[in-house]
């Protein structure tokens, strides 16, 4: 205890040097800083925070600059008690906006002229970089090679965020334009069921992985493994299957699948939990849930229906567009349709994959440091930042990082006790003004992922809560309130999921549930996209749903009307 206090007194190097939130200075830069609740609740470990703040920040400014977005220069980020705080960097003068617009017209063109090739080339670059990182056998590598792998991982992470935000800004710009055009020409916006029908019914990598897990569940049943799966707890699934007759062969095949597609994290934006490759408990739990639910893979069953509905919607809409406008309208429609696919696939190929490789490299160093005595256990590495890793990497036997780990861990435990405030405002500046600032930025990502559209309270509906439609439909069932990934195994077939927000690691439960209610989200947020593909209603921007609704309550979600009813108050 005294030791820790001494170190506190010495003042620990901040987790993200240069980007710790500093109220007097930073509130001058911008009067409103928003907590990224989607990614940084619960609070990040110091090492993960270091990566995110440095490079997500860089990527957004890179993307905005590369596209020369006329009104926004991307986002600035700060780190505060494990939370990521963001603000939009506005283009200040009309003169500058005009100059940026000139360049923007040229820079955005590849997105319109040849989107597929653009995305494919960026993806190929990243997949190539990942293979490079994986080549090194970390436990046989020299200290020099280990550090080099870590430095390369840092570069790959930076490049990932560049690709990520360049693609995201360009893609969402197209989506927003399509939505505006629909509003103008068809009087519908992106919370309208017809709009959803137009952009839904496409396969993507995340859904393909879910389907593979479903196929494995069928295989397990065929091999007589269903009993073992159904009677095992998540953390013992792998061992119990392995011990069963036919189990070793099945697990060998499952692990082979994971080696290909298991480069992902249990929590999308954190690296202190094992990847699917290290610990197959999360995908095996999904497999178990498929067996509990029984029946077919409803995504496949829904696919044909949704695809057909989209074709009808396209016909219906194109009939209303003047023939001379159909050319560009169709091009823009195709682009908007790709936005949903991009939104899901980039999580798989960019965020989740890179984070898995960050963990791989960091754990390699962690194991080396632990065996040299610099830290106690490999995963202490998440409490050390790259500056300190470099300090000790070549001669870990000569450096003692334990006090640093102890102080940072104590600090992190403090962060986890007290939730970070959702927004930090300059005195005299209120939430409406803050949202107004985001809207004024016209920043495509801020508009489509953070802000969303605000629910309209329609008193005549007499609903208990209101939201906006992320995916059309009506559902009635038992509510299941889930506040973090580790509770996902509790979800039962036929329930309605209620959450603050969802991410790709939640996707597999979408095939079990009847509907989704989330506190925050816009039409390109995860819950909305996946809900549309699975054909279940999703109600967005309910704000207080996860606090007011209790697990076990019967609720009715009418996404078309934007209304939620609690049936057994």
């Amino acid at each position, binding site marked *: 205890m005294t030791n820790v206090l001494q170190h506190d007194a010495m003042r620990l190097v901040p987790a993200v040097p240069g980007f710790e939130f500093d109220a007097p200075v930073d509130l001058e830069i911008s009067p409103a800083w928003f907590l990224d609740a989607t990614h940084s609740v619960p609070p990040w470990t110091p090492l993960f925070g270091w990566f995110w703040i440095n490079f997500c920040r860089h990527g957004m400014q890179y993307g905005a600059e590369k596209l020369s977005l006329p009104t926004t220069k991307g986002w600035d980020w700060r780190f505060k008690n494990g939370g990521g705080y963001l603000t939009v960097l506005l283009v200040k003068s009309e003169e500058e906006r005009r100059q940026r617009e000139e360049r923007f017209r040229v820079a955005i063109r590849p997105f319109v002229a040849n989107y597929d090739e653009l995305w494919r080339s960026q993806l190929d670059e990243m997949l190539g970089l990942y293979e490079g990182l994986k080549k090194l056998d970390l436990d046989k590598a020299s200290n020099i090679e280990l550090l080099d792998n870590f430095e390369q991982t840092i570069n790959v992470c930076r490049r990932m965020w560049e690709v990520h935000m360049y693609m995201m800004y360009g893609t969402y710009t197209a989506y927003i334009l399509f939505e505006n055009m629909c509003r103008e020409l068809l009087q519908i916006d992106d919370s309208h069921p017809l709009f959803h029908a137009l952009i839904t019914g496409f396969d993507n990598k995340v859904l393909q992985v879910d389907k593979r897990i479903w196929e494995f569940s069928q295989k397990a049943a065929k091999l007589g493994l269903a009993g073992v799966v159904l009677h095992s707890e998540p953390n013992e699934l792998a061992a119990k299957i392995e011990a069963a007759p036919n189990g070793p062969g099945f697990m060998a095949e499952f692990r082979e699948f994971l080696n290909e597609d298991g480069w992902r994290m249990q929590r999308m934006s954190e690296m202190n939990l094992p990847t699917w490759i290290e610990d197959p408990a999360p995908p095996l739990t999904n497999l178990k849930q498929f067996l509990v639910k029984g029946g077919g893979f409803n995504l496949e069953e829904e696919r044909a229906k949704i695809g057909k509905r*989209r074709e009808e919607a396209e016909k219906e809409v194109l009939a209303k567009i003047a023939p001379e406008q159909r050319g*560009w309208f169709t091009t823009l429609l195709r682009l908007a349709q790709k936005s949903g696919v991009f939104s899901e696939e980039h999580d798989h190929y960019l965020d989740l994959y890179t984070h898995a490789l960050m963990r791989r490299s960091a754990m390699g160093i962690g194991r080396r440091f632990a065996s040299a005595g610099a830290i106690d256990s490999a995963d202490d590495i998440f409490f050390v930042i790259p500056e300190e890793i470099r300090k000790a990497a070549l001669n870990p036997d000569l450096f003692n990082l334990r006090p640093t780990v102890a102080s940072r861990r104590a600090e992190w435990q403090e962060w986890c006790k007290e939730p970070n405030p959702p927004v930090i405002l300059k005195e005299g500046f209120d939430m409406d003004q803050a949202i107004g600032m985001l809207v004024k930025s016209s920043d495509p990502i801020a508009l489509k992922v953070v802000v969303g559209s605000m629910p309209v309270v329609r008193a005549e509906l007499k609903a208990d809560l209101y939201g906006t439609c992320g995916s059309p439909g009506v559902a009635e069932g038992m509510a299941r309130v889930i506040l973090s990934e580790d509770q996902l195994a509790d979800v039962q077939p036929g329930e309605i999921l209620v959450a603050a927000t969802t991410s790709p690691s939640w996707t597999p439960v979408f095939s079990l549930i009847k509907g989704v209610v989330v506190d925050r989200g816009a039409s390109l947020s995860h819950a909305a996209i996946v809900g549309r593909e699975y054909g279940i209603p999703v109600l967005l921007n309910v704000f207080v749903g996860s606090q007011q609704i209790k697990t076990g309550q019967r609720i009715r979600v009418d996404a078309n009307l934007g209304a939620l009813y609690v049936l057994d108050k």
Partner: protein
Amino acid sequence: MMSKKWIYSLDELGQEHADLVGRKCANLGEMTKLGMRVPPGFAISVDGFEKYMRETGLGKRIEAYFAALGEDLKKSIQKQMEASAAAKQMMAETPLPASIADHIERSYEALCAGCSATGLPVAVRSSGAVSMPGQMETYLHVRGSAEVTRRVREVWESTFNTRAISFRLEKGMQVDKAPIGIAVIRMVNAKSAGVVLTVIPTTGDVDHAVIEGNWGLGESVVSGEITPDNFIIHKASLAIEKKVSKKTRWVVSTANGTAKADVPVDLQDMPCLEDDEIRELARIALHVEKHFGVPQDMEWVVDKDLPFPESVIWVQARAAKFTAKPKEADTDYITDQMARLFRR
């Protein structure tokens, strides 16, 4: 020293082996891996060519010859033609070492045995490690081990065709050698042939695939000289929409290659594919598209001599390059509207 392997069976190969055996062979190998039926055959690697050049000393002689010509070669097409003739002459005078010829002959005989045939007709096709469109020779209807060996050497010789030399000079590539492999594959006796695209190229519609085909070999479809039969397949339901055209000309195999000819009158208005064949083509094409995650452009042949479904054979699969490019004017309009989004 154990000599390095330089002949491969197609199922040993995949996309990643383009440098080893050339793109054509690597592609055939990859298709085999994906469960597509390709004509049975074997691949002679780039090393096979180099082995011949090295063991006979020919490589050194040709290298010296080109070195002596120096920079002048670039300027004069006349010089390039002379160089071509000289290099080909040197090759023609240099027979294959017995060990190389033996190995090729044994591989061909094994192929014959695998197809339960003697003197199986094969195609001997060049397979460049880099794209060298139409510069090298391909020989069809090659029969017997002596002929196969002769044609293999002639494909190698064709790397010194004048246009191949000019191309390498133009692209700044090494001029005195070219990395090529060779595919030796069974001739297909084509009833009909054509292409499948798993996207409608004119609209970018990915819900449908399109098959185009004609009687005989695929060249008539690819070259666009005739109006082929057109079958649109709805991917989700596999429903088929047929547009059968009057097909008056076709390309047929002849003893020395191919020739254009008139389609017999009774075939002209008949669809060139049965429904079963259309569905089989669509099934495989969608499977391959799913594997690669992008729309595919694939070439197929239906073999007259084999029973369905073994008769459905693939010769090419690649990413569809021409998914709906929007018109310039539409792109202009959209980028203009995008710029307006940021004006408030």
